């Protein structure tokens, strides 16, 4: 056998038995700690959420007059009907820190009560600390002229619903 023994004086680059066992010991502790950390983070992220569904029925087409902005408080969303009669749905959650905004009919703007952000009726920021415009949501016409909004699907502000 020309393979050097572990405690041979020739085997300088061969690690000693003690060092080898220490490395196995430390290695197993590291592996266990890493596994525990991963499992802990997984445990802390719930797999089932009991949150309200993202799709909701906003109302009938005729409930919304032309040139109107309607806040649906429970859903934190606006249903906007333009002068021309088309619809779009928009988030009412301020993009700054998540407060619910409100429609100021007399000024024709959307305003946030928390830190003074202001948006126009298309959701574009016109004042205040909000970093992004209000996202628009997909809206389809359901049964019996029901407007159905899906807050889980964000669309561009050029997407409108003609009825």
């Amino acid at each position, binding site marked *: 056998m020309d393979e050097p023994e572990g405690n041979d004086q020739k085997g300088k680059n061969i690690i000693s038995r003690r060092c080898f066992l220490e490395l196995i010991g430390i290695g197993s502790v590291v592996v266990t700690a890493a596994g525990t950390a991963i499992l802990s*983070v997984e445990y*802390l*992220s*719930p797999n089932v*959420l*009991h*949150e309200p569904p993202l799709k909701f029925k906003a109302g009938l087409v005729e409930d919304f007059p032309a040139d109107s902005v309607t806040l649906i408080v429970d859903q934190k969303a606006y249903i906007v009907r333009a002068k021309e009669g088309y619809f779009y749905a928009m988030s009412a959650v301020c993009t*700054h*820190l*998540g*407060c619910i905004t409100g429609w100021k009919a007399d000024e024709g703007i959307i305003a946030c009560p*928390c830190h003074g952000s202001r948006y126009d009726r298309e959701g574009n920021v016109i004042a205040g600390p909000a970093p992004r415009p209000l996202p628009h949501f997909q809206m389809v016409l359901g049964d019996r002229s029901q407007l159905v909004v899906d807050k889980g699907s964000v669309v561009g502000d050029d997407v409108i619903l003609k009825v």
Partner: protein
Amino acid sequence: MAPFVERVVRSQVWRSIFRHGFPESNRTRAETVFYNFFLHVHPTKVRKRSLRFTYTWGLGGLSFGLFIVLVLTGGLLMLYYRPSVPQAYADMKDLQFVVSSGEFLRNMHRWAAHAMVAVVFLHMLRVFYRGSYRPPKEFNWVIGVVLLLVTILLSYTGYLLPWDQLSFWGISVGTNIVRAIPFGLGDKISFLLLGGHIVGEYALIRFYVLHCFILPVAGVVLMGIHFWRVRKDGGV
């Protein structure tokens, strides 16, 4: 000494609890400190200057005293409070209007909490202006900063528990600030904190566990180290 008192002091029970004489000589005075769990961390010598009230303003001790008040009142409030929706809000109202002394305990918890944040902050200012962070006490300053963070987090997690509008929006805004952490970490951390995407029941339970268990235990451990180091460095 009255004969009755003398009998008590000489009894087996007394002598097994206090294994030394009254602090009358240097030896028994030292023993009183060494053999007492609460006193044993005291240094052997304290400079007279550091005993002056205006040296520390007693702010560390006041913080700890407020912490004791908060643990006691908080423990009692837990007996009536259920961290679930919608019971949490109703239980808080019950504590205010139905439970005997409930309003007193709730207010005591609230005011002590506000005071603790203020006093811990003043304590930090005092340590800064007295230069008490200087070697060899640098690491205790670091522990103190972590304790300040624990205090603020305790205050913040307790803010959600009444489950009223103020709580809800306070935590909505706070966790939205967390979302600003870059590299996609913000959304993950916010999801873990809330146990979901919205401030709901999971968020309430998580904040409750943080407020009543994890943060107080972390605080107690850090306080133990903090006090021990203060004493080893010759403080009160």
